[in-house]
C-alpha cells in the first residue's frame, strides 16, 4: 500500500494530529476499503432492463395503434398502462426486486416514477389519508415534480427570448 502515493493507510489516519486533515484522510481510506458495485456491470444491467421496459412500452403502442388509436393517443394509453403495471408490481413488492437488479434501468423510465409515488402511499397509509398519504405521497417524487416544472418554465423563458430575436 505504501508505495502507491494516492493510497491512504490506517497509520496515516491514526498519526494525523490535525482533525480536518485526519477526517479527509479517513474519508479517502474508507473509500479504498469499501467494496462497490461494478460500475460497468450496473450500466449493462440498466441498459438491458431499461431497454426491456421500453420495448414493452413499444409493444403497447403497437397494440393500441392496431386498435386504430392515433400516435399521440396510443402514446398516452401506453404511459397509463406502464404506470398501472408499475403500481401493481409495487403493491406486490415485485418492483423493488426488479430495481435491485436493474438499478437506473428501472428508475429512469416512467415506471420508476410510478413506483416512487406508490411506495410512500402504501407505507404512510397508516398515518392517515391527510397527514399520511396526503402529505407524504411525494416525499420521493416531489423533487422531480418541482424541478421538472421549474426547468420547463426556465426553458420556456429561454424559448420566448429566442423567439423575440427571430422576428
Amino acid at each position, binding site marked *: 500500500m505504501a508505495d502507491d502515493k494516492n493510497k491512504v493507510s*490506517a*497509520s496515516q*489516519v*491514526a*498519526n494525523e494530529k490535525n482533525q*480536518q486533515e*485526519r*477526517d*479527509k484522510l*479517513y*474519508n479517502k*481510506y*474508507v473509500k479504498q*476499503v*469499501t*467494496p*462497490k*458495485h461494478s460500475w460497468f456491470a*450496473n450500466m449493462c444491467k440498466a441498459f438491458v432492463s431499461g431497454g426491456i421496459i421500453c420495448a414493452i412500452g413499444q409493444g403497447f403502442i403497437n397494440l393500441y395503434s392496431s386498435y386504430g388509436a392515433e400516435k399521440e393517443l396510443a402514446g398516452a394509453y401506453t404511459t397509463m398502462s406502464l404506470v398501472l403495471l408499475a403500481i401493481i408490481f*409495487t*403493491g406486490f*413488492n415485485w*418492483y*423493488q426486486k*426488479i*430495481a*435491485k437488479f*436493474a*438499478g437506473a434501468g*428501472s*428508475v429512469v423510465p416512467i415506471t*420508476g416514477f410510478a*413506483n*416512487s409515488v*406508490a*411506495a*410512500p402511499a*402504501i*407505507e*404512510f397509509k*397508516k398515518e392517515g389519508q391527510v397527514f399520511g398519504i396526503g402529505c407524504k405521497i411525494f*416525499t*420521493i417524487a416531489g423533487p422531480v415534480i418541482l424541478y421538472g416544472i421549474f426547468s420547463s418554465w426556465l426553458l420556456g423563458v429561454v424559448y420566448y427570448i429566442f423567439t423575440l430575436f427571430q422576428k
Partner: protein
Amino acid sequence: MTQTSAKQSKMVGKQSLQFSNPPAIIGCASIAGKKEGEGPLGAFFNVVEEDPMFGQKTWEEAESKMLGMAVDVAIHNAGLKKSDIRYLVGGDLLGQLIATSFGIENFEIPLLGVYGACSTMGESIVVASMIIDGGFADKTLAITSSHFAGAEKQFRFPLAYGSQRPKAATWTVTGSGAVILGQEPEKDSEFAKQFSPVMIKVKGVTIGKIVDFGLKDSLNMGACMAPAACETIAQNLKDFKIQPDYYDRIITGDLGVVGKDILIDLLKQKGYDISSNHMDCGIEIFDSEAQDTHAGGSGCGCSAITLTGYILQKLRKQDWNRVLFVPTGALLSTVSYNEGQSVPGIAHAVMLESC
C-alpha cells in the same frame, strides 16, 4: 475502607468502572424476526416470530409488541414477577423511543429511557449494572429493540421503493433482546436450571465517547462507527492495563464486514492486535450471501439478540470465559444527514465473565 475510597475504587482509568459487587445476569430473552430466525444463529433465539407485523397494524406497534414480548419472556425466564423488577433501562431506534414506551406500558415498571442508536444494549446494561452495584436496586432489566421495516421507513425509503443498496449497507435486524440483572439467579427458574452452576457477571464497563471522523455516508455505517469502537476498546484495555488476549472474544455490535476490517486496522495503529479474537454480531447474525444482507446486520436488536441468544450460551458452556461486548451506534438523524452533517459514532464496552 472509608466511604470515599470505596466509591473511588470502582473508577478505573479514564472511562471505565470495575464493579465492587458485580451484577449477575439472572434472566434473558431474545425475540427475533423471520429472517433472523433463518440465519446462522436462528436456533439460539427464544422466539422467532414469522409475522413481521407481530399481529399489529403498523410497524411501530409491531416493534412495541416485540419489545413487550422480550420483557415478558425475560421475566418468566428469570422466574420473577413484573413487580420484582425495580427499574427498566431501555431504548430503541424510533423517534422519541416510542417502541420502548408503548411496549412496556402495561408492565408498570419504572423506566429510564436511553438512546445510543445501535449501541443501546451496551448503554442500557451499563446503566442497569451501575444501579445494581450502587445498591439502588436489587433487580433491573436492560432492553432494546429494532425492526427492519420501522427503521427503513424512518431512516431510508418506504419498503416498496425500488432502489439499489450499496455493498457497504447493512440490514436492520428485527429483534428485541432483554437481560435481567441482579445478585444471583432465582432457584428453580428456567434461567438457573439452564445456566447453573455457571454465573455470568458484568465485571466492569467502559463508557464510550462520541467519535467522529467526518464520514457522511449513512449507508456505510460500519466505517462511521469503527473509530468509536476502536477508541472504546483501546480505552478499556488501557484503563484495566490488559492486552486483547485477556478476552476470549471482543465482540462488536454491527460494524459489518467493512467496519470490521477498519477496526482491526485502526487498533493495530494503537498497538493492539484483535484480529484473532474479534467477532462482530452483524457478521454472525446473517448469512450475507444466502440472505442478501450485504455488509451484515445492524440495529439495536442485532447486538442485543446475539448477546442474549448466542453469546450468553457460549459463556454458559464456558467456551468463552471473558467477553468484551461492544455494541456500536451511529448517532445520526435524517435531519442531521440532510443538513450535511457527518455521522458520529459511539460504542460502549461491557465486560462479561463466566464463573
